Every structure is written in structure tokens, then in C-alpha cells.
């Protein structure tokens, strides 16, 4: 057996040497190997990170990602963005306190919805207008909104809007009362037939003008 030049170079198990009182070669060998593993891991991560950044920058600056609304997101991108929105709304709406919403709120909400929301979201038997139809992401129907969102979350979305989706924040355009009224109406939509929707949104209603609504904004 050749003399050990340095503990790290020795691969054989020399743990019996511990009796001598100095750190065993086996221990030193282990820590040397650990250092090598950590070093390799760091270098690999750095390398992967640099490569990833370079690829990302190339895709970004070359403009390869098609931003046109006739080309859909990749499936992963779509679900990532949608998930981020869902979790964000869930968190931010947590502190919203839902007031008592009455039948009168629903009636008032019908007018608010007709005047401000139906253009993009449509309603039972009611088509959105052209710009609502072809927006990407699609504003989507709200007849299933209660299956996706709690009442407080509907309020939060209406009030604050959703970045990069086309959903405006209504905080400065609808009064607090009208915002809750429209939320009350949307909350009832799943149970509405096309006929109910028509009746509620075409009956003579108190017209909701932006000027009148703004007065109550908090």
C-alpha cells in the first residue's frame, strides 16, 4: 500500500485510525467529497441560470413571443397567469367585509351591469359586443362567476380590476353602493334564465349615470 499523500486523495476506508486521536482520514475524505458536491451543484446552478437568462433574453429581444390576439398563449403560460390571478385575488380580497345585499341591490345592480359589464361579459342569452368577444384573454361569461369566486372576491375584482386582462378598476367610476349592487346581481346570475335576464335588464329602471354614481365614491 502506497503512503497516503493527503487525506483527500485516499479513497480507502481508514476509519480504524481514529484511535490515534487526530481526525480520521475517512472524515476528511467525506468532507472533501461534500465540498466537491456543493461546488458542482453551485457551478451547475450558475451555469443553468446563465444559460436560461441568455435564452430568455434572446427570446425576449428577438420578439419571438407573438403578442397578437389571434395567437393564443402557450397552454402553460395561460394557466400560470390564470392561477396567479386566482391566488392574488383570493389573498387580496380576504379583508373585504360583505354587507347585507337586498333585493333592491339586485334590481339596481341589473342596471349597473347592463350599462357597464354586459358589453364585455354578456349575460344569459345576451352576447357581448364585438370588442368583448375578441379580447384576449376573453372577459368570459359571469353566469358561472359564483362557482369561481366568493362574493368578496367579486367585489374586489370589480373595484380593483385585473392588470393586463382588460378588466378595469371601477373604484373611481362606480359608487360603493353601485359596486355592491352589481356584485349582488352577478351573484344571482347563475340562477337566471335568458328571460329573467332580459326582464331584469330591460324593465324601466333607475338609470345609473356615471355622474350620479361618482358622487358616492368613498
Amino acid at each position, binding site marked *: 500500500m502506497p503512503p497516503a499523500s493527503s487525506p483527500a486523495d485516499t479513497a480507502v476506508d481508514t476509519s480504524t485510525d481514529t484511535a490515534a486521536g487526530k481526525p480520521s482520514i475517512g472524515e476528511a475524505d467525506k468532507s472533501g467529497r461534500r465540498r466537491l458536491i456543493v461546488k458542482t451543484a453551485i457551478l451547475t446552478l450558475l451555469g443553468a441560470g446563465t444559460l436560461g437568462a441568455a435564452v430568455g433574453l434572446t427570446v425576449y429581444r428577438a420578439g419571438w413571443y407573438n403578442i397578437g390576439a389571434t395567437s393564443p398563449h402557450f397552454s402553460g403560460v*395561460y394557466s400560470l397567469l390564470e392561477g396567479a390571478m386566482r391566488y392574488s385575488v383570493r389573498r387580496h380580497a380576504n379583508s373585504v367585509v360583505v354587507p347585507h345585499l337586498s333585493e333592491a341591490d339586485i334590481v339596481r345592480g341589473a342596471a349597473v351591469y347592463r350599462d357597464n359589464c354586459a358589453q364585455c361579459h354578456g349575460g344569459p*342569452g345576451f352576447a357581448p359586443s364585438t370588442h368583448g368577444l*375578441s379580447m384576449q384573454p376573453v372577459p368570459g361569461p359571469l*353566469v*358561472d362567476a359564483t362557482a369561481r369566486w366568493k362574493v368578496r372576491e367579486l367585489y374586489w375584482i370589480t373595484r380593483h380590476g385585473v392588470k393586463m386582462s382588460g378588466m378595469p378598476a371601477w373604484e373611481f367610476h362606480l359608487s360603493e353602493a353601485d359596486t355592491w349592487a352589481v356584485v349582488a346581481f352577478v351573484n344571482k346570475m347563475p340562477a337566471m334564465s*335568458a328571460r329573467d335576464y332580459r326582464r331584469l335588464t330591460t324593465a324601466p329602471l333607475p338609470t345609473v349615470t356615471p355622474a350620479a354614481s361618482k358622487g358616492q365614491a368613498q
Partner: protein
Amino acid sequence: MKMPPTLAAALLALSAWGLAGCDSGAKLAPGTSGDPELGKLALTQYACQSCHKIPGIIGSEVYVGRPLEGMAKRRFIAGNLLNNQENLMRWIRDPQSVYPETAMPNLGVSEKDARHISAYLLTLD
């Protein structure tokens, strides 16, 4: 480093395939006319996917309208209409003429687009 032309071509082809989103390119179903690929694009411009889950279309998990997978295999649409391209186009363009109380709105789909859209839907089996 100089890249051999065959390798370069192979890489280019591979990335082109990747960028194309692995599109299989729907084939027109027998007895239908129109352009399924155009229909696939057109239907997103009438927000069909906002209410229907449609195979091949990126969108949310929605169950407002019925999911449209297996359209080619269905015998009836909208309850009692025989499933063929003409009837499907009629349903797409004017659902109220088939079923006045339906929640599916009239979305103002042109005849041309309805033909392409129905051509796409009828490739889904």
C-alpha cells in the same frame, strides 16, 4: 465554431416544429366544407372558448356551455337537431331560431366563419 449545415438545418427544423405548437393540422371531416384551421382561429374571435371547453383551444376550465369534445361523433346537437354541418352552422349563427330560450347568445357569426368553425368542430372525435 462552424456548424455543419445538416446539423443547422435539423436544429432549425426542430425549433420551427417547437414554435408551431406541435399543431397536428386538423383534417376536414367527410361531408363538410370550409377550413378547419381557419375555424380554429375564428372561434376564438367569437369567444366560443369563454363558455365551451374545446379540444385544441387554450382557455379556462369552463362549463357554461357544454364541452365540445367528440362533436364529430354526436348524432344530435342542441337537443333535437341532426348533427350535420348545415344544422351546426344554423345553431352557431342563430341559436334562438332553434331554441328561443337558450342561454347561448347570437354572436353575429358570419356565414363564412360559421362554416370554418363548424368544419373545425366536426373534426373533433
